[in-house]
């Protein structure tokens, strides 16, 4: 994700947080939201920012809580409405586990997200899953405020930018 794209995503994430509560408490502060007014609803940017491409997990868990499920229902609706899109579901872990275990945990998380999307009607053939374990943290501090953001499942459009 480019820097500008990331800022845009944060802005929309803040917008979205008010209604869907898909972001954890540590979500980004509100920023200028007007930049997204002209987004094409079929664009990857729209998916990332308005729908929300991430869900978050508790420590050592792959359970999808209510807010994660709400996000994934919205993702499924978008994917069904955009049938040309295929996606890779990435499973990530925080840095507080061993490398092999975190790869397995990331696989479990990616699979939980993928299975939920399939259950909501997204054709399984359009969704791959991959684990990154603890290899690609998005937030770099070493305390719970960052770890909670790194325990994530990210739905990445196969033809979109990687996160």
């Amino acid at each position, binding site marked *: 994700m480019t820097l500008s794209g990331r800022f845009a995503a944060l802005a929309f994430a803040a917008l979205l947080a008010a209604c869907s509560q898909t972001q954890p408490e540590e979500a980004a502060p509100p920023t200028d939201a007007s930049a997204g007014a002209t987004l094409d609803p079929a664009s990857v940017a729209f998916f990332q920012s308005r729908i929300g491409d991430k869900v978050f997990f508790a420590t050592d868990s792959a359970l999808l809580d209510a807010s994660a499920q709400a996000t994934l229902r919205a993702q499924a609706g978008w994917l069904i409405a955009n049938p040309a899109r295929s996606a890779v579901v990435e499973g990530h872990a925080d840095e*507080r586990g061993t490398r*092999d275990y975190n790869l397995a945990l990331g*696989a479990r998380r990616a699979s939980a997200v993928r299975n939920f999307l399939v259950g909501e009607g997204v054709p399984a053939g359009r969704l791959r899953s991959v684990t990154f374990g603890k290899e690609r943290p998005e937030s770099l501090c070493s305390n719970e405020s960052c770890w909670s953001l790194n325990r994530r499942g990210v739905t990445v459009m196969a033809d979109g930018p990687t996160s």
Partner: protein
Amino acid sequence: MALKHFAAAALGAVLALGLFAAPVAAQAPLRIVITEGVIEPMPIALPRIQASPDAAVLAEEVRNVVISDLSGSGLFRIIDEAAYLSDGGSVDARPNLDNWRVINAEALGVSDAALDPDGRLAVRFQLWDVFQGGPLGDGIIVRAAPGDARRIGHKIADAIHLALTGEPGYFDSRLAFVAESGPKGDRTKRIAVMDYDGANVRYLTDGRALVLTPRFSPQGDRIVYISYATGEPKVVIQDVGSGASEVLGAFPAMSFAPRFSPDGSRVIMSLADGGNTDLYEMSLATRQLRRLTSGPGIETAPSYSPDGTQVVFESDAGGSQQLYVMSASGGPATRISFGEGRYGTPVWSPRGDLIAFTKILSGRFHVGVMRADGSNERLLTASFLDEAPTWSPNGRVLKFFRETPGPQGAPAVWRVDANGRNLRRVPTPGAASDPSWSPLLP
């Protein structure tokens, strides 16, 4: 005394160092017993190698390697040259041991060096028991190309270790590791191999693909590791010498946590099928996969016992990450970790007696050891993140990586004796993780 008293040892050829282990004296031999207690390093004198002029520089390099190996082990102390009353004298003559007794050297290593007609460096070495007054085993000759002079030093240090502890050393060995660079959120990782002491670093991958957890074959000639070159984690096998590599297995699942069997004929690994991670064993001859576990939990990080009959691994089947042992052909598993906290990355000692592991307890990471039945757990280290122990070839030392916290945090390789002594950082060119110790080189 003629050359025939020396056991010839040429790098790359069959070694005759075994002669060094022959019984050396009717009385109690000079010996360090590697035990748990704090021990005083044994004082040794290593006078300069008597070298022909064309071999002098290389000889000095060899000696420095021997000194670094032995003092770095924590078992030996090399008495400072300034205290020596004489030089070492001829390798072919009996030294005047009185000169070494008065400076309290318990052992004396005498050596000479010359260039052979073919350009190779030849070093002859003889160890003496200063207080009992006899030679410690036969002498050795080690020959190598000048570029391999360091390995001559490691061979001599290993011979001294064997003569004085009764156990093989670990100095002529290598470490595979992951060399890390770039920001924490988007690390560039390369598989690298270096001498056990940090010399001669060589990179086996170019950093384009994310790579993790290299592990040496029991012959030291190949490694297995994880590569994301295809976009998802796959076990890759690579020849260390030629660099030729190949993805192991053309199956759709993600594969990781590979390790060779002790005979080198099989690789055990985890496959993630959907969200479920289980253990599989692949024959390298046939590429046939055999499934070893089938529960719904995470089963990963497998490691064979040295005789190849058992596997220790981690599983969260009981609710949290714990260590289990099962037959190498699968079947029921027995839990062996019962302390507080979570346990991972079990590695069976080459001696068979101990299993090293990572323990996560109250937000701290430890490297520890326990007996193979899970008893006598001992934690050797503690930090924000200590992980992934790997055994020295003789099962007496562990290397692991320690990562510092925060946005600028980075991993480094450390070593610690299996009894908890002599914790030190291992030099690497930059940040480094996932160490794997090779066997002793031939």
